[in-house]
C-alpha cells in the first residue's frame, strides 16, 4: 500500500511547488508592469501588426532578445527593365533611435530605408514598402514629377491609411512603385531549405545505417525514424495502394516527412525554427498542386471514365451533365481541401499562441493585477496549445499523406477495386441498418 500512495503525494508536492513558482512569477510581473504601462501608454499595442508579422514572411530573420537585429538574407529581385539584383536585406533597413520627448527614454526601432544602386548609369531604388498596396514587400521606386506628387498626395489624404494604388510613400514623398519579380531568400525560403536539409540528413542517416549494418535493426533516433517510415509505408501507402505502393511511396514519404519537419520546425521559436512554413498558403499550395499533378497524370482510363461517365442513373448525367460537373469540380476541390486544411490548421495553432501571448500586453492597460493574472493564464494556455500543436503537426502531416494516398489510389485503380468498394459499402450499410434496428 505504501508504494501506491507514494505517487499521488509526490505529484501533489510538485503541484504545490509549481503553484508557488507561478505565484512568484505573477507578483514579479505585477511589479514590473507599471513601469511598462507608463512608458507604453502613449503607444498602442498593434495586435494585428504583431500577429501578421509573426505569421508572415520577412526579409531578415529575428534573433532572440534583440529587437532590431535581423540575420541578413539575400534579396533577389528583377527590376522593371529586366535587370536582376541581388543584395543583402540589411541594406533595406536601418536602426533608428527614437527619443520619447516626455520621458526622455530612447528606443531603437528598425525602419525601412531606400537602397539605391547604380548599374550602367541608371539608378535603381528598392524599398520594403510600408504605405503601399504591397506592404512588407520589396518594391522598386521611381521618382515622380511635382505635379503628379501633389495629385497623389491629394488622393492619399482622401484615404484613411494613405495608400494609393501604384504608389508607395517613403518619408512623406510618394514614388511610383513597381512590384519586381521577387525570388528573395526570405526567412521562409531559408527555413524551407533548412527543413529539406534536415529531412535529407534524417533519411540518409537511416540509409547509411542500412548500408553499414545490413540486416540489423536501428535503435533510438533512427529506430524512431524507421518506425515512422514503417507506420506510413505499411499502414497507409501499402494498405491503400497495394502492389503499386513502391511506385508512389517516394512521393508520399517525402510529403509526410517534409510536412512533419516543417510543422515541428515552426513550433521552435528561435533561429532554425520559428518560420511559419506550413501555415503559409504558398507552401501548402505547392504541396497540394503536387498531389493534384500526380493524381491526374497517373489517372487510369477507369478514373477518367468515373469522372465523365460515372455509374449513376442516366438522367443524372444526360442530357444535363450534373454528375460530370460535380466530378470535374471534385478534381479541383480535393487538392484545394488538402491545401486549406494544412494551412488553416497550422496557421490557427500559431495564431492562437500569439494571441495568447499578446493578451498579456493588451491587459497591461488594466494595471498590475491584470498583467500578472493574464501572464499566468496565458503562459499556461500557451504551453497547452504548443503541446497540442505538436500533436496537430503530426496529425496534419499524417492526414495530408493519407488523403494524398487515397486520391492517388482512387486515380490509379483499374476498375476491379470499385466493385470491391461497392460490396464493402453495401456490407457497411447492412451493418448500420442492423445497428439501427438494435437500437430501436
Amino acid at each position: 500500500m505504501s508504494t501506491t500512495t507514494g505517487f499521488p503525494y509526490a505529484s501533489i508536492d510538485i503541484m504545490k511547488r509549481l503553484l508557488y513558482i507561478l505565484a512568484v512569477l505573477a507578483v514579479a510581473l505585477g511589479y514590473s508592469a507599471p513601469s511598462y504601462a507608463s512608458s507604453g501608454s502613449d503607444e498602442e499595442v498593434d495586435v494585428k501588426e504583431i500577429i501578421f508579422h509573426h505569421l508572415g514572411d520577412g526579409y531578415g530573420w529575428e534573433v532572440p532578445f534583440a529587437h532590431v537585429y535581423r540575420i541578413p538574407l539575400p534579396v533577389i529581385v528583377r527590376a522593371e527593365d529586366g535587370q536582376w539584383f541581388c543584395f543583402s536585406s540589411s541594406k533595406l533597413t536601418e536602426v533608428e533611435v527614437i527619443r520619447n520627448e516626455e520621458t526622455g527614454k530612447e528606443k531603437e526601432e528598425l525602419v525601412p530605408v531606400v537602397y539605391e544602386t547604380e548599374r550602367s548609369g541608371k539608378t535603381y531604388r528598392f524599398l520594403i514598402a510600408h504605405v503601399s498596396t504591397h506592404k512588407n514587400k520589396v518594391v522598386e521606386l521611381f521618382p515622380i514629377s511635382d505635379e503628379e506628387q501633389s495629385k497623389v498626395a491629394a488622393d492619399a489624404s482622401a484615404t484613411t491609411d494613405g495608400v494609393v494604388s501604384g504608389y508607395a510613400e517613403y518619408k512623406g514623398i510618394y514614388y511610383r512603385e513597381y512590384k519586381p519579380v521577387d525570388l528573395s531568400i526570405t526567412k521562409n525560403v531559408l527555413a524551407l531549405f533548412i527543413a529539406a536539409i534536415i529531412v535529407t540528413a534524417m533519411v540518409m542517416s537511416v540509409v547509411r545505417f542500412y548500408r553499414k549494418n545490413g540486416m540489423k535493426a536501428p535503435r533510438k533516433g533512427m529506430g524512431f525514424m524507421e518506425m515512422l517510415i514503417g507506420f506510413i509505408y505499411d499502414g497507409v501507402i501499402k494498405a491503400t495502394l497495394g502492389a503499386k505502393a513502391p511506385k508512389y511511396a517516394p512521393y508520399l514519404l517525402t510529403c509526410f516527412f517534409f510536412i512533419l519537419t516543417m510543422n515541428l520546425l515552426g513550433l521552435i521559436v528561435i533561429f532554425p525554427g520559428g518560420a511559419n512554413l506550413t501555415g503559409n498558403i504558398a507552401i501548402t499550395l505547392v504541396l497540394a498542386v503536387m498531389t493534384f499533378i500526380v493524381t491526374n497524370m497517373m489517372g487510369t482510363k477507369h478514373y477518367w471514365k468515373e469522372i465523365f461517365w460515372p455509374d449513376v442513373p442516366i438522367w443524372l448525367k444526360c442530357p444535363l451533365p450534373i454528375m460530370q460537373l460535380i466530378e470535374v469540380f471534385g478534381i479541383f476541390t480535393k487538392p484545394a481541401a488538402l491545401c486549406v486544411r494544412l494551412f488553416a490548421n497550422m496557421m490557427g495553432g500559431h495564431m492562437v499562441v500569439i494571441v495568447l501571448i499578446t493578451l498579456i500586453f493588451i491587459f497591461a492597460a488594466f494595471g498590475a493585477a491584470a498583467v500578472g493574472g493574464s501572464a499566468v493564464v496565458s503562459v499556461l494556455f500557451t504551453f497547452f496549445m504548443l503541446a497540442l500543436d505538436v500533436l496537430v503537426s503530426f496529425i496534419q502531416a499524417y492526414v495530408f499523406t493519407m488523403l494524398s494516398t487515397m486520391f492517388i489510389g482512387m486515380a490509379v485503380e483499374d476498375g476491379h477495386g470499385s466493385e470491391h468498394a461497392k460490396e464493402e459499402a453495401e456490407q457497411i450499410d447492412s451493418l448500420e441498418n442492423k445497428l439501427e434496428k438494435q437500437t430501436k
Partner: protein
Amino acid sequence: MELFTPDFGLVFWMFVAFLLLFLVLGKWGWPVIVKSMNERADTIDKGVEYAREAKEQLDSARAEAEKFVTEAQKQQAEILRDAAKMKTQIIEEARKEASEEAKKVMDAAKVSIEQSRKEAELQFRNEVSRFSLEIAEKMVRNQLASDAAQTQLVDKLLNEIEKN
C-alpha cells in the same frame, strides 16, 4: 488578406526545394529504406518459418526416437522372455537327459550287478560243491577207514545196483 495570397517567390522556392528533395530521396533514400525494411521483414518471416519447421522436425524426430525406444524395449522384453523360456527348456532337457543317462547307468549297473551275482552264485556253487565233495570225501574216508565199513558200503552199493 496578405496571409491568403500565395507569394510567388515562396511558391517558386518551395517548388524547387520539394522537387530537389523528392529527386534526392526518391533516388537514394526511400527505395533503399523500403527495400531494406522489406528484406529484413522477409528475413524475420523466414527465420520464424525456419524455426517453426525446425521445431516440427525436432518434434517428429523426438516422436520417432520414442517410437524406436519403445520398440527396442518391446524387443528387449521379448528377447528376455525367449531367453527365460529357452533357459527353462534347456534346464528341462538337461534334466531329462541326465535322468536318462542316470537310468542307463543304473541299468548297466544292475546288469553288471546281476552278472556278478550270477558269477558269484556260480562260483559259490562251485565252491560249495567242491567243499561238499571235500567234506564228503573226508567223511567217506573217515567212515571207510575200516575194511569192514568198506566192504559193507560196497555191498550196499552193489545192492542198490542190483535192485536197479
